[in-house]
């Protein structure tokens, strides 16, 4: 399991209810279910991934986070997880408000465009950065709304979204990934 999921699972208490938005093949959900007795649900856009999740005994709904989050009632989960997909949405602002409507807390991770390697790539090569977390070319990337850790913090401040204290320390320059626990 990738390190990001380990960090996310450490942020989640045992016996809670978690919705994993864009749950992929269900690796994180399965871990939370088995190790932390978490009651998990997933939303996933890929049919293949939904199949994989089903064979793991996970309850996953095939759907699109931008269209299908409305079906979940207010505060129906303790945590809603969104791992590295915020930047791919047409309307990330709406998705964030949905996450905070459905979950008492939301755990959001973003590939950090302020990471020093990203900055250096753009500075020295003059082309769009390609890194481990940003592997695509500008013309085929699914990412529409890249931001930096600092951008995300600024956004939360502007929208009066509380960044939970259990968040990782704030490392705009040195982290490839920003991991935030936020609540309304």
């Amino acid at each position, binding site marked *: 399991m990738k390190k990001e999921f380990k960090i996310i699972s450490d942020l989640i208490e045992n016996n809670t209810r978690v919705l994993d938005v864009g749950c992929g093949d269900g690796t994180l959900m399965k871990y939370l279910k088995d190790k932390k007795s978490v009651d998990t649900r997933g939303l996933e856009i890929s*049919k293949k991934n939904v199949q994989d999740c*089903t064979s793991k005994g996970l*309850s996953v709904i095939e759907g699109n986070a931008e269209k299908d989050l409305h079906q979940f009632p207010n505060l129906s989960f303790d945590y809603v997880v969104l791992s590295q997909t915020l930047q791919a949405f047409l309307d990330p602002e709406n998705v964030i408000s949905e996450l905070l409507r459905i979950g008492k807390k939301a755990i959001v991770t973003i590939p950090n465009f302020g990471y020093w390697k990203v900055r250096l790539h753009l500075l020295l090569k003059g082309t769009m950065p390609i890194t481990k977390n940003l592997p695509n070319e500008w013309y085929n990337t699914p990412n529409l709304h890249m931001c930096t850790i600092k951008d995300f913090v600024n956004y939360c401040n502007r929208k009066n979204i509380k960044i939970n204290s259990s968040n990782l320390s704030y490392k705009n320059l040195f982290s490839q990934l920003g991991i935030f626990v936020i609540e309304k």
Partner: protein
Amino acid sequence: MNNIEKVKTLIIDEPLKLDCGQTISNFPLAYETYGTLNEKKDNAILVFHALSGDQFVTGTNPITNKSGWWSYLVGPGKAIDTNKFFIICANVIGGCMGSYGPSSIDQKTNKTIGTNFPVITINDMVNAQYNLLNFFKIDKLFSVTGGSMGGMQALQFVANFPDKTKTAIPIACTASHSAQNIALNELGRQAIMADKNWNNGNYFNTESSPNNGLAVARMAAHITYLSKKSLEDKFGRKLQERDSLKFSFDADFQIESYLRHQGNAFVDRFDANSYLYITRAMDYFDLIKQYKGNLSNAFKNSKTKFFIISFTSDWLYPTLENKEVVIALNAAGANVGFIEINSDKGHDSFLLDVPDFLSSVRNFLEANY
């Protein structure tokens, strides 16, 4: 062995109050089972059949000598593995494969009941079949499943008996029969009623049944089970055993010949009055209205784990209607998974060899057993 002996029948003593207000009792429910009920009695799956189905899910149907309607899905080593699970399926009341229906004989008059049979609902069908649990002394089913009208029954079952099944797999169905589907059913009914042999449902005392009407009803319905693409791929404009158009109303095209065959084969195994009653039950199905406009209330107390399946090319029970059920389940905080299977075979996909569908059902059952 005559046909009657090939049909297992349970006589339901307990009175059943129907939605129409009438009460029926001492009526037959024909059923079939596959596999073995284990000692803990926790491996039973109740399968609900669709409009034209019956209790003979798999293997060879002893009445028609054709393969059971869900042979791709159910059987030894298959997705619903009869080596592992105990499968029960009953002919719905209103049907014509041994359960109480319009072709049953009225003991008092010694005549077929015909249209004196009460109008029944999906709810009535499910309540009648619930007696099978008592009969087999099963406290809780492992699963309930079915496609189309079978899926509607699965939804109704969980709504009526929230703690009587561990899992449920409603397939290609809806919580509320749409205007389009009512319209299509009405087309079929009117075709039957327009056949003078129908005779207000009293055709059993005469030599001839409304076969033409029933065949047309089946032809029209059959089109709705397919998709434009599957028709195009299978038939296109191919001609039937001829090189050129005959400038007549013969079946010039293969699709015409195919539909005529479907219609004619159907009348050999299906009763026209049953077709009226069962389509009516489907039209009356509205779980949303039954729960005062909020479908979530139907599943409020359910601990059942749901897996909803739809098909991309199904325009009869489209993904959108299946998703409404998913949304309602989520709103009720129920445990639900959902997948839309890629298939260009239309509504019939749930009966056919669609590998992603078969593996989805297999994976769900195996992961939860």
